[in-house]
């Protein structure tokens, strides 16, 4: 199987290792990875501030870049949600948009729903706290949110829980927002940092040693707070844990 790899611009520029880890994980599960060079940004920052005219050409660019792939995989819940749930108004007129929309997957989704990988074998002897990023959670439904009355599940948890030695912590507020929110992190700096610090405190109380999640943007925000406060908690993208633990199918 060959997939188109969609690497969010901030991962490309700031967290290249997360991208590389994603490639390694996909290859380990027998997937060939293409990285179309023409990709840049999905347009979410512009769309979220309301500048549709600035976002629309980037949606077009994405469409032109990825439309011929049967599967597109992205190590970010938020950017995947942008394509799946917010491109309609920019690309709705394109024949083939519906196909593209259904072909884009966040990494965990792709592993569990397309590759159907079962419990993983690998070693990761650490106490890990999962941050449920909101767009992965409530737009992509990578897990059941705490607000809804339904059978709980969590794709990120089910990918990690079978690794040898891993301990997944439980939090007092399991899926509260970290306060990143894109430009919100800057325009509402005070609220944003207060939210981030509260998440960190929750993870500290739960004994999190490594903080992980499906969105490097949320993790970048919390890592920024952690490093400024010189706290020992480390941050890793979920793909990095899968890569480092040598996770493979049983």
């Amino acid at each position, binding site marked *: 199987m060959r997939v188109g790899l969609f690497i969010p611009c901030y991962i490309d520029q700031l967290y*290249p*290792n997360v991208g590389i880890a994603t490639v390694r994980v996909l290859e380990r599960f027998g997937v060939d990875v293409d990285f179309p*060079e023409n990709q840049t940004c999905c347009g979410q*920052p*512009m769309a979220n501030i*309301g500048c549709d005219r600035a976002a629309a050409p980037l949606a077009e660019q994405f469409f032109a870049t990825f439309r011929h792939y049967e599967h597109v995989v992205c190590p970010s819940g938020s950017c995947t949600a942008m394509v799946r749930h917010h491109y309609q108004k920019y690309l709705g007129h394109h024949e083939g948009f519906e196909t593209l929309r259904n072909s884009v997957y966040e990494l965990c989704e792709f592993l569990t729903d397309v590759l159907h990988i079962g419990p993983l074998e690998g070693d990761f002897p650490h106490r890990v706290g999962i941050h449920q990023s909101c767009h992965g959670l409530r737009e992509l439904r990578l897990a059941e949110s705490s607000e809804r009355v339904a059978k709980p599940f969590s794709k990120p948890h089910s990918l990690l829980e079978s690794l040898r030695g891993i301990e997944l912590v439980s939090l007092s507020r399991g899926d509260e927002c970290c306060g990143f929110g894109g430009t919100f992190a800057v325009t*509402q700096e005070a609220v944003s940092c*207060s939210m981030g610090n509260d998440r960190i405190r929750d993870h500290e109380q739960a004994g999190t040693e490594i903080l992980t999640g499906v969105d490097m943007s949320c993790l970048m925000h919390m890592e920024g707070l952690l*490093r400024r406060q010189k706290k020992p908690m480390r941050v890793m993208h979920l793909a990095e844990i899968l890569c480092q633990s040598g996770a493979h199918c049983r």
Partner: protein
Amino acid sequence: MNHPQEAARFLANAKRAKWHDEALWFVRSKRDMAAADIPEWEQLRQQASQIKAHTIANLKTYLQQFEQKATDLGAHVHWARDASEHNTIVQSILRDHGARRIVKSKSMLTEECQLNPHLENAGFEITDTDLGEWIVQLRNEPPSHIVLPAIHIKKEEVGELFHQKLGTRQGSADPDYLTESARNTLRKSFLQADAAITGVNFAIAETGGIVICTNEGNADMGTGLPGLHIACMGIEKIIPRAEDLALFLRLLARSGTGQPITAYTAHHHGPRPDGQLHIVLVDNGRTEILKQEAFRNSLHCIRCGACMNTCPVYRRSGGHSYGYTIPGPIGSILASARDPKAFYTLPYASSLCGSCTDICPVNIDLHHQLLAWRSEITRQKILPLPKRLAMAALSHLMRRPRLYRLFGAISRSIGRAIPRTLLYCRFNVWGRQRELPPLPKKSFRRMFQQEAARREEKQHEK
């Protein structure tokens, strides 16, 4: 109105902000337990949303049916186009009855219409009888939450306020003692009142009845004593049938406070035999919202307050930071409909986490509407020009992959080279409380290309 500024001010008192956050999270947790008691909760939300959508789509029919039925029951029905018409109508009813002292139970509509100052200026004496509302009235400030109007005030402050206003013991913050004192004072207001004003939680088209939910019984104390009852409602409060009520009552109390049902749920079908019932139906901008498809379902709102309790921004910025009668996610949407320019920071007072959407008992897609308002604010050029220009520039850069690569590489090397004091200068808002990520030498695409080239070489050698 500038939400980020007000929020920062609220957060400056970190201890108090934490207390506020935890008090509301407690309510949210109670709601979670109450909702989880009903396995079919998600179906109920769906059903309520459908009933509301149907009602709003046939609003005219149901309002006329309600008017007919309520009139048949002996109530007087009035129609108000806007806040000022509403206030004039209420004032003239009071005047016609020679009423001067009024007890009022909780009604966000009368807050929206600024009825209290209007009546006070006209010489009426008006007492808010919901304990929280009364506390904020004594403090001369607006409610900070639609269900818990005084949630921003600590019991010690209530003790001090009551000491000054009611003469309670100085330094006492015992809730039982303070409530008892409030009760004794409010009793006098009830007994002396010439008229009662209430809100309306639900108006039933089929029967012409209205339903008022409280936890303190204060609405019933009001409507039970004086002979004149004026009930004020927004036109979206209508539901088609009496049998729909059960559904909404379950959703309202469980979502709002985590109770299975409100302590007092009063059904009024026409006036008391010895009294008069006036129902004022208020539009005040609602039909304007009705015309806008993207925002129409904000009229589904039953004012339970769950979106406030769950909103991580509301909990950390307080209701007053929104500067509008109704705060939180739904308030930001309604305020924008009222005046997008004055309230333009409100749709941005959200991280778009979507918790409000998942909790809303009538399935309003709140965070998507906040996003839609942002588009509207930009389209109307209300968003400050520098922000629009910045986004346009970013878009131009991102449309040119080679320029983007170059710009990225240069920015990263500059970022690595310049001294820390410059990198973290005062214009770096991100860096006030946070470190920037360490800037890597190579981008992902560079690493990927190099790896691909190495692989190809290896294959070649083979």
